[in-house]
């Protein structure tokens, strides 16, 4: 099944902006960075037209920037037929920040608008469920605003100078900062939650008579079940609030943020370079992919060239990352549907060998910190090539084939996966799903092909898709992608040239020219994007991570409705979330 978008010509981002300007006149403008600035009142209309008449059927990213005089809500949209992203902006007043919600235009805006509301306090008029998402409902303040100070706040920007040169060390807990008690609680707050209009807060597990009155047609009593955050199947601290009719799911609300650490604020306070090791901690199963996304964005801003050898090393490392990440993801899914740990242990055996390669090259198995702006940190060690050769030509192909023989035809596995959690292609695009979830729904979209970065255009490989849209399709896409990654690594190992591994001078204090950029890479779990705004200083002005796991969860409720409770575990497993990236 393919999506019919061929009624529109495929437009370059600049053309979209120019044509939109011609059509909407003074209701839109263009800013210095080539973004389409849309008048607040006209936003839904213009967005609908962009989607229907200009082919921007996919919303990549939605975030917000806190400027001294306004909030800019920033959207990035692109066409599923390939090409770059178009940046749209809509300004909101500082005093009363409201913009129209675009959930009706792009359903994928749902969780991302909630995140922008949570972090910046910008309200989206017409949003169906505008509640905090990463912070708890009774939290006071907006953590990504520039005036926000966290507990034990020291200074706005690193490097701090309060610890040096006095040499008086202290522990954060013992230090009495002005901000050590700034977790503010609203009036009426108790441990059980806060009462609002006489009704308890949404996160309290209660279904009262009000809800029953609103749905009179049900035959049996509804029940709310909180799955997680301490449930072994939720891949970490993730919670699903299931509304059940008997054993059938009628509604699902994802509850997240238990591991929220304000990664973006940390990034905005760090030096550009010092942020690199923090990106490892986002999707810690696909550490090197995260680093590439960040390096790519900053290199775009700086206009840095990457030397040939470094490009090849990046490809080898990132495709090995994809293989070990999918090994993990696929067998964790099997774990979720009851093939308890045996397939996982077999996969971990192979994965460890790849991590050994990472360790000998980068110095660490998981927190690699290997990419630098303009290249990589170290050259490959001499023993890397022979070991990798045995792995990618011999051991890993056999391991993947064995996994195929072991699991793919297994009747119990098929029974649990086929026809469960179906996401049709239109919905997958609408919900901004990406990665194996999108390709498992029959949409042949891969950032490596749609907007090639690095040197992906030099290799012979295929975008793996499956038409079914169910869990089985996502599983098969992942297995297929491991084989394609092996193909890419083999070609890269054959062609890798000698030469320098870092373009430009090695420097810890870099100057990033003023500007903004949205850089994206195809991570194992989907499109990972970094939206960076530089004001020309030593620290980023705005640093936003478009997390594929987080956005893919938008479609979770849709996939789960009508299935049994046990299937929600499998469906969540097929999205393959990593909480470090969902919560950031």
């Amino acid at each position, binding site marked *: 099944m393919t999506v019919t978008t061929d009624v529109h010509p495929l437009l370059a981002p600049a053309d979209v902006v120019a044509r939109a300007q011609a059509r909407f006149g003074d209701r839109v403008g263009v800013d210095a960075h080539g973004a389409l600035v849309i008048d607040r009142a006209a936003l839904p209309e213009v967005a609908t037209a962009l989607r229907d008449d200009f082919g921007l059927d996919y919303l990549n990213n939605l975030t917000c920037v806190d400027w001294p005089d306004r909030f800019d809500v920033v959207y990035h949209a692109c066409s599923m037929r390939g090409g770059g992203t178009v940046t749209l902006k809509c300004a909101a007043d500082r005093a009363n920040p409201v913009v129209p919600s675009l959930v009706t235009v792009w359903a994928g805006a749902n969780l991302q608008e909630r995140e922008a509301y949570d972090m910046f306090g910008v309200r989206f008029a017409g949003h169906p469920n505008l509640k905090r998402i990463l912070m708890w409902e009774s939290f006071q303040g907006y953590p990504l605003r520039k005036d926000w100070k966290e507990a034990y706040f*020291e*200074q706005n920007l*690193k*490097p*701090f*100078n*309060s*610890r*040096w*040169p*006095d*040499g008086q*060390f*202290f*522990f954060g807990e013992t*230090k009495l*900062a002005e901000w050590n008690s700034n977790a503010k609680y609203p009036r009426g707050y108790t441990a059980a939650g806060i009462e609002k209009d006489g009704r308890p807060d949404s996160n309290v597990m209660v279904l009262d008579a009000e809800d029953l009155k609103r749905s009179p047609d049900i035959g049996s009593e509804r029940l709310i079940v909180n799955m997680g955050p301490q449930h072994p199947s939720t891949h970490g601290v993730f919670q699903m609030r299931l509304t059940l009719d008997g054993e059938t799911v009628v509604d699902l609300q994802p509850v997240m943020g238990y591991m929220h650490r304000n990664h973006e604020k940390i990034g905005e306070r760090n*030096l550009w*370079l*010092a*942020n*690199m*090791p*923090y990106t490892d901690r986002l999707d810690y199963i696909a550490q090197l992919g995260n680093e590439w996304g960040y390096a790519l964005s900053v290199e775009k801003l700086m206009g840095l060239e990457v030397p040939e050898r470094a490009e090849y090393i990046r490809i080898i490392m990132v495709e090995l990352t994809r293989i070990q990440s999918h090994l993990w993801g696929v067998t964790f899914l099997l774990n979720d549907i009851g093939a308890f740990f*045996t397939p996982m*242990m077999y996969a971990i055996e192979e994965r*460890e*060998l790849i991590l*050994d390669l990472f*360790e*000998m*090259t*980068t*110095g*660490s198995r998981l*927190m690699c*910190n290997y990419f630098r702006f303009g290249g990589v940190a*170290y050259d490959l*060690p*001499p*023993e890397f090539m*022979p*070991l990798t050769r*045995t*792995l990618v030509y*011999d*051991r890993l192909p056999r391991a993947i084939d*064995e996994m195929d*023989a*072991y699991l*793919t*035809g*297994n*009747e*119990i*596995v*098929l029974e649990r996966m086929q026809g469960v959690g179906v996401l049709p292609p239109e919905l997958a695009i609408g919900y901004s799903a990406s990665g194996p979830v999108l390709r498992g729904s029959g949409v042949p979209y891969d950032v490596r092909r749609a907007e090639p970065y690095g040197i992906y255009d030099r290799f012979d490989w295929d975008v793996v898709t499956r038409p079914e849209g169910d869990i089985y399709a996502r599983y098969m896409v992942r297995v297929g992608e491991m084989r394609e990654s092996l193909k890419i690594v083999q070609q890269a190992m054959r062609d890798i040239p000698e030469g320098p591994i870092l373009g430009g001078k*090695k420097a*810890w*204090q870099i100057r990033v020219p003023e500007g903004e950029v949205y850089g994206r890479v195809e991570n194992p779990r989907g499109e990972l994007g970094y939206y960076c705004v530089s004001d020309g200083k030593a620290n980023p002005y705005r640093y936003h991570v478009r997390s594929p796991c987080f956005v893919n969860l938008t479609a979770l409720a849709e996939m789960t409705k009508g299935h049994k409770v046990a299937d929600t575990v499998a469906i969540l497993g097929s999205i393959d979330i990593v909480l470090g990236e969902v919560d950031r």
Partner: protein
Amino acid sequence: MAFGMGVVRGMGVTLRHFFETYTVAQKKQPAVAGNVPSPAEAIKGGKMPGGMPTETGGIFTFQYPDQKLPVPERFRYIPFLLYEEEPESERAQFDGTRCTACGICAKVCPPQCIWIVQGKGDDGRPRPVATEFYIDASICMSCGFCSEYCPFDAIKMDHDFEFSSYERHESWVFDIQELLHPVAYHAAIHPTDYERELEEQRQKEAAKRKKEEAARAAAASTGVDADEAKRRKMEARQRMLDAKAKRETAQGGGEGG
């Protein structure tokens, strides 16, 4: 395929893994306690160790802590500082410590876990040596930036990862005495890196000799003494350092946390 054959075939895979545990894995298991050869050593020796690639199978385990897998040279965990043991080294006047308290490691450190106190001479002038050097290992993220960007090869990442303690505050703040390791230790755990260091030193010395010869030749032709020129240069450098220290004192006063 008849229904149920998929399950049976899967069982076959499990069975093979089970038998390989006895036929392959346990035979390769190192029998004696001690370090297992690293992959690099194994390749040089022409055979793979128990844990590494192609011909292993089945399930095996290393008996940690009796057996330890060696870590690769680039493995990094918590930085340490270096001191020269040779009495004639140019850092001898600073007890051999290589650190010049330039502060780059503290500034590039992402979680800001390093703090340094620069040494001062009797006349109050800053000296290129750290009198205090702390690393709060409880917030160090072992990213390796400090050793990567240190211009003097004075700070390196350690291989020792066995730091467990019953106390999680004071015992994790390492002071300069705990951090200092001899260069020989660095040379032992980072042989390739140490070789690069020596090579750079050789090149630097060769360049210096060349420059001195050129200066002597120039002095011979112009009449300006090479030693006199060097002395002037040192004076200019000291003036610069003084100005910097003055600036920092003025800045640092208002910003203590």
